[in-house]
């Protein structure tokens, strides 16, 4: 699964994207798994209310299933316009 990070999430985790081997069933499970691996993930994911997630390039939510998903992206609320 391709996992991408943008803006300060990217800076905190230190890479723009990475390939992750996981059996996580939901976005929340993936966050828990990554956070348990290394402190930089735990720091980035500490407050999910300050985060947004997209699954295969569509905005989604943290309870969503990862079945069939190829790309997960984490980022702060958007500030375009």
């Amino acid at each position, binding site marked *: 699964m391709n996992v991408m990070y943008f803006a300060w999430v990217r800076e905190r985790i230190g890479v723009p994207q990475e390939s992750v081997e996981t059996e996580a069933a939901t976005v929340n499970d993936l966050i828990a798994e990554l956070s348990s691996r290394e402190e930089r993930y735990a720091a980035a994911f500490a407050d999910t209310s300050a985060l947004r997630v997209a699954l295969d390039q569509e905005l989604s939510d943290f309870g969503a299933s990862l079945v069939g998903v190829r790309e997960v992206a984490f980022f702060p609320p*958007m*500030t375009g316009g």
Partner: protein
Amino acid sequence: MHIRVQPEQFDAGAELNAFAQGRSDVGAVVSFTGVVRDTDGDLREMLIEHYPGMTQSAITKIAQEAVDRWVLADCLVIHRYGSLKPGEPIMMVAAAAAHRAASFEAADFLMDYLKSRAPFWKKELTSKGADWVAAKGEDEDALNRWR
């Protein structure tokens, strides 16, 4: 529908003139241009990051909803990414319709959704350092106007 995501500067006036030309059903054109603001006189650069795989499709979805909902003759969205200087245009939208109410509402709608639903993030570089621009609660609230 014209949608462009690009690092290059663009000429808002030329875009406005080129937009919705030669259509006899257009009586009203509204444009919005977002500009890099430097109120404190201390901004060196604005960096805009985006999510290339998602940007075009997210904007297309928003623009299509505006066209359907207000029966627009046409609409335009241009959004830059990369390094921008104070005073430069960040992005623009334009909406063309038969009457003024539709063009105003559609452009306003496009801006509200682009602000909170298109994957762009702004970072400001000043003499004090670099800071990601925080989303405002009022930007999320603004979306409720259209539900």
